[in-house]
């Protein structure tokens, strides 16, 4: 499905350059390696839990690559590590949420242009609409990119967000990663009407249903959507068809709801391998480049792991100090009691 008119999206960008394609590969390798390592960290007791995005590297790197961090803002859920890495977020600060250091992560969302990690399914989709409307009110040209999944598409907030954005012509790109599974529930038990993208028509919004495992297709679609929204034409919905190759989280056991054969059939070809074959076929990269990219990813992962392991707990006073900008006497009294009693333990 592609109901985004070329005229509306204008001259988004030409074909991707060789440098861009190589950078996309490097990013995807870095994300893949960090993602699979994080599972190992959890098994080793370095972190208590993690929500892997194995198989969604193309969807996340391709879309995140379209963000202009000088003016745009992205709104993740809890599975957008690849987006964060692509946008250049401090990854120790990002991964700290999985270390149980701080719920939203330790990165500065305003400076990173990435909203805090969001555990409520569909929770931040409306925030993107509000932020985008703020761009309109301020006569700025930033675009909000909001992520959610096929499961979240069932939430009322997603529908309210799409309707609000369409009514107000807010510059929002709704980016659905349809990874086939909402924990144990497959898309066919989740999404009536065949696709999330089909719903865009009901809001008078253009939609693109794309191969979410083709990073080039993802990036090009996201750039087109950004150009459309940035030009004051209102929101766009992108449904990137992909597959959650791993468990929902490190606590999940996919064997209870899908077989290995089903997994293999559903997953298709690995998005990283697809890009590798493409770069080889086009003569853009060689084995030496791939080896170098993997080596760099390993160095990066080690640095992040070291940083995570070095992270101590946040001081307990932050529980109290960060609730309000202007604290209250009651909260101060509770903090004082906590301090006094904790010192006697």
């Amino acid at each position, binding site marked *: 499905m592609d109901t985004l008119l070329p005229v509306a999206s204008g001259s988004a960008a030409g074909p991707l350059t060789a440098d861009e394609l190589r950078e996309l590969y490097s990013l995807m390798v870095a994300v893949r390696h960090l993602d699979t390592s994080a599972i190992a960290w959890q098994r080793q007791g370095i972190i208590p839990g993690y929500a892997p995005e194995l198989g969604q590297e193309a969807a996340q790197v391709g879309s995140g690559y379209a963000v202009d961090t000088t003016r745009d*803002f992205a709104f993740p859920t809890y599975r957008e590590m690849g987006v964060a890495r692509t946008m250049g977020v401090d990854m120790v600060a990002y991964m700290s949420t999985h270390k149980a250091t*701080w*719920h*939203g992560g*330790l990165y*500065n*969302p*305003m*400076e990173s242009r990435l*909203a*805090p990690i969001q555990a*409520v399914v569909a*929770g*931040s*989709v*409306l*925030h*993107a*609409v*509000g*932020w*985008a*409307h*703020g*761009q309109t*009110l*301020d006569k700025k040209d930033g675009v*909000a990119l909001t992520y959610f999944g096929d499961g979240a598409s069932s939430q*009322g*907030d997603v529908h*309210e*967000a799409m*309707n*609000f954005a369409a*009514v107000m012509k807010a510059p929002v790109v709704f980016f659905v990663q349809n990874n086939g599974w909402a924990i144990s529930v497959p898309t066919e038990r989740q999404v009536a009407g065949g696709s999330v993208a089909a719903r865009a028509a009901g809001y008078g919004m253009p939609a693109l249903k794309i191969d979410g495992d083709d990073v080039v297709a993802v990036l090009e679609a996201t750039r087109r959507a950004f150009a459309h929204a940035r030009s004051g034409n209102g929101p766009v919905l992108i449904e990137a068809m992909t597959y959650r190759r791993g468990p929902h989280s490190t606590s999940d056991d996919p064997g209870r709801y899908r077989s290995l054969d089903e997994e293999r059939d559903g997953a298709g070809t690995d998005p990283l391998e697809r890009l590798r074959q493409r770069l080889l076929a086009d003569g853009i990269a060689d084995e030496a480049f791939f080896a170098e990219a993997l080596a760099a990813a390993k160095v990066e992962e080690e640095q992040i792991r070291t940083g995570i392991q070095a992270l101590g707990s946040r001081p307990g006073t*932050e529980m109290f*100090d*960060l*609730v*309000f*900008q*202007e604290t*209250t*006497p*009651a*909260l101060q009294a509770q903090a004082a009691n906590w301090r006094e009693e904790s010192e006697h333990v």
Partner: protein
Amino acid sequence: MSNSILESESASGNNTADNTAGDTITNPAGSEPATTVMSMQQALNRALDEVLAENPKAVIFGEDCGRLGGVFRITDGLQARHGAQRVFDTPLAESGILGMSVGLAMAGFHPIPEVQFDGFAYPAINQMVCQIARMNYRSRGTMPMPITLRVPSFGGIRAPEHHGESLEALFAHVPGLKVVSPSNPHEAYHLLKYAATRPDPVIFMEPKSRYWQKGEVDAARHDAGGGSTTGAKVMREGRHLTLIAWGAMVARCLQVAELAAEDGIDIEVLDLRWLKPIDAEALAASVRKTRRAVVVHEAPLTSGLGAEVAQLITQSCFDTLRAPVERITGFDVPYPSGDLEDEYIPNIDRILFGIQRVLEYKRG
């Protein structure tokens, strides 16, 4: 409910009131006008008008807030004066309105959304509790949520179901939210202006049954007799017992105090104003003096805010209390239809019975 001592005789449910100006009372010296008589609707409207004028990032939105001026006309004329970019209508979805507020706050605005009626806040609870209340915390203070949510609240107007709810205990229980409710036009003007300039989310509960009652507003100063905008306020001094209330119940308690005075009972009335955080010091100061307390609210009894008030008083005044703190409240029933509304909302007789029980209490 008849008029309280604070109301003018002519005040009634006139929803076409001219809100551009009240009647100015010039002081005897004939110099600057001291106070202006206006309805709470006019006072709120004026406060919002001034907030919009003073803060270019303040925006007002919600269902019917724009052209119509709100179903209670609180935003009447504001779109015409400040433009459709600053005062606008949204689609009819409360979660959308509150969720959108988060994004606008992130973008540097001071959103002043309206949820049209108390009961309509229920569909927005997720955005209020999981998002607005926690975003400052989640973001480690980098994304403040200066959101002032106006909610026409409480009962008393013979409205349909879900139009007479008292949600203060629900809101007050949520870490990260502050809750305030004005009791008269003067309080409405000042508390709204204060709330709408705070860097934290404030739920502003407007007693809708009081919208059309007039009172004197001194725009120049909030608490003439000292006190703080962030705390409770003694509305009537007394020696024998403290009546604690907020919103529409304050006027009723003042009326009760006048009736009790005829029997020689000298009642202090404390307008709590802030329901989160509660001014524990003001409670302690008053009840230390009177040694008896009755708390009055429209919300159901069980786990109502009256329980919190009673505990705060017990904590500070246990040794001198002459009787357990009494709660005169709504019942643990769904808010009833108009015909039974007066049976549900604490009335003068029920409050007087409560006072009598406290005064006649014998230890042991």
